[in-house]
Structures are given as structure tokens and as C-alpha cells.
């Protein structure tokens, strides 16, 4: 065993030639293209057609508040790789900006303190801010996906890589053997690549020991004056992410209902009244130990990639390799340790989990 407690060598043994990736998120799109090109698989992407102007249920960053050094170490290598791959899109899909991590309650402040030291140890540009409560850390120069541009260019990018795009209604189902049947054709490996896909295809019961789906909402407000400190903030207490859009509107995603936002954002927003301009509700998988869940559950059918967090996109190149059996040893170890067959609270991978799944 390594010092981290991870098994030394575990690789994904399934490596079929035909793979169905099911999901509409940027992660699903990116993973499909990478499986088709980097790993030369015959890939079908099953997704509901997206449209510009919908409120999307998340944000894709090149950073997330991890505590485990293995994860941060991996991410340090994966972020430049993902950025290089994304730079091949016909339009710029990545921009950069500062991210503010904030913590108010004791558990979140404690977690922030630990992740700050670990991230700083890897040379990440973190800058603790003055003030004790909320405790805040600014992360400089975080990569951020321009989702609208990415998804708009995604069709052409996928087509150029030979990925077959299929509407969700054309998926006949997922078999007990983990295969997908699409318009009479069988794809031996089905990957449920986002929360919505996993929920639709009924893996909730299969994953009950590892976590559960928690209601989340994305709110859009009318424009407000520029936020104090940064236009992008993550509230560790709740896991909510706040982003000020180019128009000045705030887009907030988190595990809340009703019209009350997390208290951690209060002094960022100030006294300006926030008027609702849009609202979308969705479910998000939250693991009991706060760590991602990868692979096929013990009694499950399809392979799942869930709970990856705001930096999910950065893991796509590695997960494509893992699926194809081409991951490096450290990568394979990391994936195996985060496998969907692990115990309910795996001490080797546990992260800070803002939304306790059993709450």
C-alpha cells in the first residue's frame, strides 16, 4: 500500500470497442470525443439536445477544493492536459479568473484550512484573505469553461471525431450486463456520465450505500453591481457556487430550495436587492464520503462517473484512458480507490462533503 492507503495497482479491465456515453453535460461531451479519438473507440453520445439560453446546472472549473494530496497531485497534471485538448475547439472555450473559497461554520473552516495547506504545498496560487469569519481564500487564475461556447461548438467537434450523437429517446435501455441498446445496435459498455443520466436510468438504488441524489437549484438574478473581491465564489459550508456573469447577473447553484441563498455569500453581495430572473431545479449525486464514484456499482448495470465536482471536466482525459485500459499506474490506482464498489465511507478517499448525504 502507498502512504495514501490506495491499492498499488488496479486497472479498468473492461475495454470494449463500442461505448455509449449517456449524458448532456460538458463532461459527457468531452469524454465522448476523447474516447473516440485518444482511445479510438466507436462512441455514441446519448444526450437530450441542449439549447442556448437554458440555465445550466453547474459550472466547470480547473480547480475544486480537494483535501487528498493524491487528487490534487493528479489534477496538477490533468489541468494542463485538458486545457490543451480544449484549445482545439474552433472557438475559445476556456477563460480564467480568480475563485474565492469561503467558509463560515466550523467544519467548513477546518476543511478550508487543510485544503489551503495542501493546495499551497502543490504550488497552487492561493491567497488567504484577511478576516476570521467567514474565512476566505482566493485562488488565482482558475480555468473556467465557457459552457455556452463549448456546447455550441460541441456538435462540430464531436462530428469531426466520429462520435455518433443520439437523442435520449432513441436509447432503448441499459441491460443487466451494462450494455446499451440504441436503435437496435448494442454498445457493450454504457457510461452514465452525469447526474441527470444516472437518475433517469435508475442507479439510485444501486448507489444507495455510497450516497444519494440531493435536490439542487440554479438561480439567475437580475444584474447587480460588481461583486466584492471576485466574480466567482464557492461556499464550502453548502457547496454552493456563485458566479457573476458578464451581464452582471448572478448565477448561483447549490443544494437549496425556496428563495434563501447561503449566508456565506451575504457580504459578497452586499445590500443590493436580488431579483429572480430564472430558476432551474435538478438533482445531484452526493456521496457519503464526499469523493467521486467511478465504475459499475456492485449490483449495478451501467458504469457511472458521479460526484466529480466542479472540476469534473479536467478528469475526462484520465477517465477516457481508464475506460480504455490505458491509464498510468497512479491514475489507475486513483480510479480504483474511487470505485463504485468501495465501502460506504472509504477512509482512503474521503473528502470534505458540504452536503451530508444522510442529512
Amino acid at each position, binding site marked *: 500500500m502507498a*502512504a495514501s492507503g490506495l491499492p498499488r495497482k488496479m486497472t479498468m479491465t473492461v475495454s470494449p470497442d463500442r461505448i455509449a456515453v449517456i449524458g448532456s453535460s460538458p463532461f459527457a461531451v468531452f469524454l465522448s470525443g476523447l474516447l473516440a479519438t485518444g482511445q479510438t473507440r466507436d462512441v455514441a453520445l446519448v444526450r437530450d439536445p441542449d*439549447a*442556448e*439560453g*437554458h440555465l445550466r446546472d453547474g459550472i466547470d472549473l480547473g480547480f475544486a477544493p480537494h*483535501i*487528498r*494530496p493524491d487528487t490534487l*497531485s493528479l489534477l496538477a497534471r490533468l489541468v494542463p492536459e485538458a486545457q490543451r485538448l480544449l484549445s482545439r475547439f*474552433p*472557438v*475559445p472555450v476556456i477563460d480564467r479568473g480568480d475563485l474565492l473559497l469561503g467558509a*463560515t*461554520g*466550523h467544519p467548513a473552516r*477546518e*476543511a478550508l*484550512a*487543510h*485544503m*489551503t*495547506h*495542501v493546495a499551497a*504545498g*502543490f504550488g497552487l496560487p492561493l491567497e*488567504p484573505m484577511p478576516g*476570521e*469569519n*467567514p474565512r476566505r481564500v482566493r485562488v488565482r487564475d482558475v480555468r473556467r469553461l*465557457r*459552457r*455556452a*461556447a463549448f456546447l*455550441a461548438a460541441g456538435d462540430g467537434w464531436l462530428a469531426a471525431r466520429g462520435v455518433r450523437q443520439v437523442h435520449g429517446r432513441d436509447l432503448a435501455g441499459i441491460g443487466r450486463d451494462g450494455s446499451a441498446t440504441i436503435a437496435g445496435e448494442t454498445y457493450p459498455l454504457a457510461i452514465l456520465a452525469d447526474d441527470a443520466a444516472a437518475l433517469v436510468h435508475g442507479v439510485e438504488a444501486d448507489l444507495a450505500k455510497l450516497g444519494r441524489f440531493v435536490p439542487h437549484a440554479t438561480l*439567475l438574478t*437580475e*444584474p*447587480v453591481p460588481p461583486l466584492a473581491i471576485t466574480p466567482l465564489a464557492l461556499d464550502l459550508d453548502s457547496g454552493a457556487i456563485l458566479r457573476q*456573469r*458578464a*451581464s*452582471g*447577473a448572478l448565477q448561483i447553484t447549490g443544494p437549496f430550495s425556496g*428563495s*434563501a*441563498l447561503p*449566508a456565506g455569500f*451575504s457580504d459578497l453581495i452586499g445590500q443590493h*436587492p*436580488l*431579483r*429572480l*430572473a*430564472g*430558476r*432551474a431545479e435538478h438533482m445531484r449525486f452526493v456521496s457519503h464520503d464526499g469523493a467521486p464514484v467511478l465504475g459499475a456499482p456492485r449490483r449495478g448495470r451501467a458504469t457511472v462517473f458521479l460526484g466529480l465536482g466542479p472540476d469534473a471536466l479536467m478528469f475526462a482525459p484520465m477517465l477516457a484512458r481508464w475506460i480504455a485500459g490505458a491509464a498510468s499506474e497512479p491514475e489507475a490506482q486513483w480510479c480504483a480507490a474511487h470505485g463504485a464498489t468501495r465501502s460506504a465511507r472509504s477512509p*482512503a478517499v*474521503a473528502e*470534505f*462533503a458540504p452536503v451530508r448525504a444522510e442529512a
Partner: protein
Amino acid sequence: MLRLTGARPDELAHPLIDPARPIRFTLDGRAVRGFAGDTVLSALLASGIHTVGTREGHPVALTESFAPPVIHRGNHARPDLAVPMALCPAADGLDLVTLAPKRAPRGLARLPLPLRRRPPSLGIDLDALRTSFAPTAGLTPDRTLRADIAIVGGGLAGLSAAREAAERGLSAVLVEENQVLGGLARFFGRAEGDADPAPAIAELVAALKAAPNVTLLTATRATGVAPGRVDALGVALDETVPHPRRLAIRAERIVLATGSIEVLPVFPGNRLPGILLSSAAWSLARRFALWPGARTLIHSSANTAYRMALLAAECGMTVTQASDPRMAPQSRFIEFCKAYGFRLRRGTAIDSAAPSQAELSLTHRDAQTGRVEAEPEIVDGAFVSGGFLPDLALWAAAGGAILPHPEGYAAGSEGPDGIALAGAAAGFQSHTGAMESGRAAVARLLGETPPAPSDVLIDPVFETPQALPPASNPTAPDRPPAYFGAGPSLAAAAKTQPARKRLFRRPAPQTAPLDREPFALGLDDCIGKLASGDISADHFARLVAERCVPPTLLAVPLSPADQDEPPLAVPSFLQRRFGAGQQVWSLATADGRRLDPGALIYPNTDRATPRDAIGAVLGRDPDRGTLALLGPGHASGDTLHARDMAAGVAVTLGEKVRL
């Protein structure tokens, strides 16, 4: 706009204004004249102020569905006291200001007012707008009314529902945004075999005014509906100070008789001053005797809008042409237009509109081939219509489903508890259908199964069904925006990028739609997006559910005050972080320095990354000093190296600690 005088058809002959009682008030320091019976908005329009301001350098018309809120000058620091100008009665001595960013005057506009013409604009900088003109929903009500049934909409369906409730001995509160009851029934005209709307409205209103258990609230806008509750907004004048009158109506049963919304054809310049939706124009003419000008044209893909040509003729106004993108529309109204000798143009769409001096220049194109006509039509105003669809905005906001279909959309069969649709909102097209559906809605809410209302429909051979207006061409950067709807969202089609920029560099991604459309959308915006190809039918329902929301205020609770720190413990995210046998130790730094929680501990100064760390500081215990979590294999007195961000320090282990 001008005031109609002289002979008029009966439906326009009894406006609310009293020309014998002129009034005068000020808005943003400018004198406005009107008549008793005017609203602030109608007085502004009658005074020649037809523009709200500019967006992307182009004027945007002042209309009842797009007007800035106004507030008494002394209350300008209390935006919660602002009121919609379309609901605010005009009165002598009002001293009002608009609450919106103003564009700084440039050039001659900086001259003092006596030396220049007053602009026909409120001067609002719509590019800088941060709060939409839609009133905030969900605020604490000033008054709560309770009734057995609440009815939203005072057209034939709503009035019939109220009467049905009254006859059953139920208490009812009806809210109607307009100053008069009856809705658009008379505008739609009467088909053979259908009920005559004018006497029906008169009889219903008389009966309801006499009913002791019915409250009729006109000039009151429903701003939100949820099971058991209707929120509404009116305006009360306290001498010369307007105040919002926020009502909450508690009722177990709610009838939504919200009528129809008229679709705005999407073309560049479709919200320039002078361009009016036909129903809005009719309503202004009916209540305030306002007409957009002596020379107008009509452009419609629905038959009802042709009535404006007939009414114009009866008022002595000129209509230069009536264009229709449909190839062979048939309608009794079109036959009447032929009899009047109007110039009718089929298969013709509006390509764009542009201001022309004080007039309006409209360019047409062939709806099939797209060929643009060389000669624009110069008019004072234009009545436009892209057809009528059920007004389901409140239904959707209450959680009701909306299902798209090729001609538009309809309400889903499942709705929120205790809420029923009636009239045009429920898809009924005739006056008979509206009235019967109003009564049936009350019966359904009471748990009965009434017979299906009968709708008097005309054979499509005689009345060509309306069509959603054809998709507009992409908007060039120099043209005025092509708005999707007529309301406060200002959502508009994306403009094309100049081609030359692409020669030299990768194209920049277009502004994301959520940034182009930062305000809540209206249902008309969504149908405009659908009609113009901006979204597909697959996305319509989701867009409505996500973006057609009442602009409620979001609460941001203050951060909780500092709480007592709980006793130190090993958090779950550090389980087995340093191996299976990790233990808690007390430690001390060589120089007495305090270490922050999370500071990493290494065996020596050589180790480089946190993967090599053998421990981490947990925090400070009041009795035992600094405590750290360490992997196995250490002993009291060991010297290790702690790294607290950039600073390194030697530490000495004390004793093992059990937490």
C-alpha cells in the same frame, strides 16, 4: 400619438378620459398634460412622449407593457414605493420621477430646455438597465383579502366565473389589470352563431356590481399565483402621492381567465415608437382615445388585426396597406377590408423597420423567397400581430405545464391544486366558449364534472387559422434589435458578427444568451424565440419553466455570528490520511510560533509535496497546546518539520493524545 375626436365606432366612442377636465403633472421635471381619466402612461403618450430610451443606439417604444416605474419625487430613495405608470392614475399636481438610469445628454441636448425641442423620450439608458421594469413579486402585502374563489381576468370568462360563484353563494374577488372590464371580447368581433359580447359584458358587470359577495378590482395586476393565493398590485393615490397597493388574496379555488397574449412578429425594429400590437392599439383607443397617427399600416398573420383597418376607416384615419405572410388568408374581416378598398398584400412579411424623421419606415419582403422590396413604406404607425395564444404566464409560474405544438402551445392537462383555466387561456376561441368555460371552471373547482363547454368555431375554409410569423433574417449589427416579445425582458435575437473580423483571428464566441437576456422572460418572448427559430419546440417547455418566473426578491441571510469552537476532533476527511495507525500528538515549535490548522508536517526539510507529508496540525487545544495528526512510528521528543504555508519551522513531539 394623437387623440381621436369626432365620429367613432361604438366600441371606441366611450373612452375613460374627460376632455372637459384637463390636468397637468410633472415627470422627471417635465410638464405633462392630459385629461381626467388618463393614466400617467396614456397622458405621456398623448403628450408626444413615445420613447422610453435607447438600446444599442435605437429607440424603444413606450407602451403599456414596457414603461419604467414611477415614484413621487420625495420618495425616490424608496424604490419599493414605485408604481407601474400604466396603473397609476394621472392627476393634477403629481410630481413624479422615473427610476431608471438616464443617458447623459450630448451635443445640443445639453442646451437648456427653452432653447431646444423637448425630446419625445424619457431618456433612459436601456443598455445600463440593471433592474427590469416588471414589479417585484412576492413582497409583503398591505392588505389580505379572503374569498371562496379568486378570479384573475375580467373578460367574458372571468366575469362568467364570478357570476357563477356569486350565484352559488360563494364569495369571489376578481382582479383585472385594465381600468375597464370586458377584456378583448369586443376587439375579436362576433362570429355567426356566437354570443354578442357587448350586451353580455354589460349584463355580467351589472349583475356582479349588484352582488354583495363579489369584489371587483380593476386596474389591479395579478403578479403571482400559487395554490391558495393570488398576489396583486394596484395603485392608490394619496392626494398627489401614488403608493403601491399590494394585495394578497387567499382563496382555496382560483380561476385563471387571463385571456390571450398577442405574438410580436420578430423583425429588426419591431419595438420602435409607432409600432403597436393590434390588441394594445385597440385597448389604448378604447380607453384613452389614443391613435398612433393619421397614416398607418397593418401587418398581421392573424385575422383579427384586420379589424384595425376597419376601425381606422370609421375614425377617418388612413391605412396604407395590410400585409400578411400567409399566402391566401380568408376571413370575414379581410372581405370587409376588400370592400373598403384597402390594399391587401399576401405572402408578404416585414423585413425591418427604421425611424424616418418623425415617422416610421417599414421595408417588406416576400415571405416565400425573402426578396426585399426596394421602396419602404413611410407611415406614422403600424399595427402588427403574430397571432394570439393563451396567456399562461401565471399558470406556468404556479407550476402548470405548457405543451408546445406546431401552432404554438397549450396548457397541459395537469395543473396546480385548486387552480383552473377558463376562456382563451384554456384554449376557447368564441365568446360562448369563454362564458361557458368560466362557469365550468368554477364547477370543476367545486369537484363537479360539468358538461364540456361548447365553442363556436368557424370553418377554416372561411377563417384561415393564424400562423406564427415567419422567422426573421439575422439582424445586422447596425440595425435596431429584433425583439422576441413586447415586455420588460428586452430579449432580442443575436446579431450577426461583422464578417471581416473572422479573416484575422478565431471568431470570438457570441455573447451567451443568458447574458443577452438577464431579465426574466415573458411567455411572449418564448413564443417569439420559437417562431423565429431561436429555440426548437423540444426546448420550449423547459425555457418557460426556467425563465418565465415572477421577479421575486431573493433572501441572503447574514453570516452567523462567531460560534464557540467545538472540541478538537479528527475530521472525516482526514481518516487514514496518514495511514491506518495515525495518532494525535501534542507538539511544540522551536520558536514558540503558533501553527495554523492544516499546516503540514514532514519528516525533514527535504520533502517537497504534500504527498510526502506525515502529518497535519489539527488545531490548538486550550489544555494541551497544538495538536497534530501523525502517521505511525513516532515517539515523544522526535523532531519534525512543519510547513505553515510558506514558513517552515522545527517541531518537537510531546505526547500522544486521545481525543
